[in-house]
């Protein structure tokens, strides 16, 4: 943000602007940028998901639209979905039904504000950055509950109840897994967290100590559950609940859920990159030419890992999911916090 306002100040025509004006202009530009990034996420990752799934399942995926490996398929789908009839069920609670997808989208959009793309380049450089991201993304749950409840459909209600239970539960290990890192950094500011990992792959938090390594995988598992993707796609379990909470949604409202899913997927991936995988720092020290690009590439690799898992594993059952969360992952993440803390104290300089 500071970089952006400084840059704006240098432009002809912006020089005479007041600080407040500059701030508002910068904020609008940033918000537009984030929204574009999000929309791009959905378009690029739907195409990528199909290609990855195709690769894993020994088929091609889209090959025709746009000539080169069907790159325009996602764009075509977006256009198609825009032209679809927008149906609101007669018995649905109209207000909630219309508002729910927006809330889901808003939840994942808000969280983007604190993501550190490059040194100094964060939409909102908050001191409570990481905390803010978790808080904002938990708004998604309310949207899902609203969607399921207002649809007036039993399957949607099932999906919403499962989704709420799952996401509330998995937010705990998700946040707990990042605590050892926060202890090492001593700050919740996202820029600080990345800056603390300078100096090559060995300084990334994933390789700092064994507990952090475990914490990373705990974070990874929890993040899959948090984004409602296989093997933890309980809320939308295709073969059980038809389509879960978005069963009754059509057209653009459905697309909002879709958009939010992929935005969320990329969000949890970049958080993993930011917290554990060195953010914009390249693995080899001194080779940091394009920090933002490095950051995005790492994020996309994490997304790929997510897709790989999704298209390989069967789905767990809803009670096994809860068991895994409360009886395995939370104790393990707590252990990681303790272990990492003990190492910090005994080994001194590690932190």
């Amino acid at each position, binding site marked *: 943000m500071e970089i952006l306002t400084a840059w704006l100040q240098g432009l002809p025509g912006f020089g005479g602007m007041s600080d407040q004006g500059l701030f508002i202009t910068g904020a609008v530009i940033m918000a537009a940028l984030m929204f574009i990034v999000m929309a791009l996420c959905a378009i690029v990752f739907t195409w990528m998901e199909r290609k990855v799934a195709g690769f894993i399942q020994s088929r091609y995926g889209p090959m025709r639209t746009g000539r080169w490996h069907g790159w325009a398929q996602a764009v075509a789908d977006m256009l198609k979905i825009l032209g679809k009839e927008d149906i609101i069920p007669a018995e649905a609670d109209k207000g909630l039904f219309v508002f729910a997808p927006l809330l889901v989208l808003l939840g994942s959009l808000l969280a983007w504000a604190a993501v550190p793309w490059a040194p100094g380049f964060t939409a909102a450089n908050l001191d409570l950055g990481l905390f803010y991201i978790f808080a904002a993304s938990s708004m998604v749950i309310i949207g899902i509950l609203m969607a399921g409840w207002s649809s007036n459909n039993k399957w949607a209600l099932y999906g919403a109840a499962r989704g709420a239970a799952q996401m509330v539960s998995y937010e705990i290990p998700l946040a707990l897994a990042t605590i050892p890192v926060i202890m090492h950094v001593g700050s919740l500011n996202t820029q600080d967290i990345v800056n603390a990992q300078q100096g090559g792959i060995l300084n990334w938090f994933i390789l700092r100590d064994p507990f952090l390594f475990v914490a990373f995988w705990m974070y990874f598992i929890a993040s899959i559950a948090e984004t409602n993707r296989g093997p933890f796609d309980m809320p939308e379990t295709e073969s059980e609940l038809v389509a879960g909470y978005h069963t009754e949604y059509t057209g653009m409202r459905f697309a909002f859920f879709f958009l939010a899913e992929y935005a969320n997927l990329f969000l949890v991936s970049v958080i993993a990159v930011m917290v554990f995988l060195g953010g914009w720092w390249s693995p080899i020290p001194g080779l940091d030419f394009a920090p933002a690009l490095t950051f995005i590439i790492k994020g996309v690799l994490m997304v790929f890992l997510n897709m790989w898992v999704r298209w390989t594993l069967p789905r767990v059952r809803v*009670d096994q999911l809860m068991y895994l969360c409360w009886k395995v992952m939370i104790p393990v993440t707590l252990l990681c916090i303790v272990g990492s803390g003990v190492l910090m104290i005994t080994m001194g300089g590690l932190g």
Partner: protein
Amino acid sequence: MSTGEKNLTGWADQDHVPGIKSELLELNMGPQHPATHGVLRLLLKTDGEIVYEVTPVIGYLHRCAEKIAEGVNYKQWMVYTDRFDYLAPVCCNHAYVTAVEKLLQPEVPERAEHLRVVTAELSRIASHLIALATFGLDMGAWTPLLYCFREREEILNLLERIAGGRMLYNYFVPGGVRYDVPDDNWVHDVLEFITMLETKKIKDYNDLLSYNKIFIERTADVGVIDAETAKAYACTGPVLRGSGVKFDCRRDDPYSVYHKFDFEIPVGMGEMGTVGDCWDRYMVRVREIEQACRIIRQALDTLPDGPYQAIPLNKIVKVPAGAAYSRTESAKGEIGHYIISDGGQVAFRNKVRSPSFCNLQVVEKVGVGQMVSDLVALVGSLDIVLGEIDR
């Protein structure tokens, strides 16, 4: 984590929060639902995720096939048997042709019988591949679906070359088969495919799905059908064998030339949980694919020369008066055909006993007390096909 021992009787008498009226949620699963494998409708009464009552409602695919049998001649009705179990149509042809030949008593050439066995077993493999694939899909595993369909495609190609069709073959005729082996390569190609399946592909499925930890968690100890229940509900096929009962018509009531071949009957052994759970039923199918491969290899290795039809194709069959019942082992279980003939070109009555119909009824008993997800696993592991249930 088992839900089996929950007290299910008298739900209404249990202590609920005073002052709050609570009731079971009635849930309509199907006829349009991704996990019911067709147009099956399951009427559920649930308390949250637990199912308290499940009633299968069938009949959405009823096509009056048995009534039609009273209006078309014996050869013409063969095409309707294709449409019973459309995933293993050749097995259904086999069932019907066995019944007709019991009355007709033609001299079926050895070569025809061998070709019948080969195509029926190929069809069985195709059907089992779909069973594995869709069961995996019910468990949320997408990738095995595509792998199984890839191999099924090979079988369809092979059957297309010999029978002309890809899905509905109408390959058998009373007294033989419709076409001979198309060319010299066919036998070789079948053997090659079988070898590939045995050596590589089944291992792939096992690595990817069968021994996957999550898959085992989802299917072991789930939907347990004990041997007594299976017998009481007249379950047959992999469902019965999954419960540990070693019964297979091909061995215990041999028809065609199955007595000549050496094969084993895989049964559920409860390796991962209890005997008769979903994993056992799944695994019985995987092992049956291996056995089917063995049968095909033996049948092709000893394929005799000679004619393949006892009755010319253009001759209308007149069946002597009388009644006959035949039972054969289809991919889904035991198909029975009861034919009454009054000596004409058309059957007086034809009653079909279809395996899926009997296998499905067990849901009513075993599905109670399961979670909704487990019910999906149970229905998936029964491997029903609605064309056969509703006929």
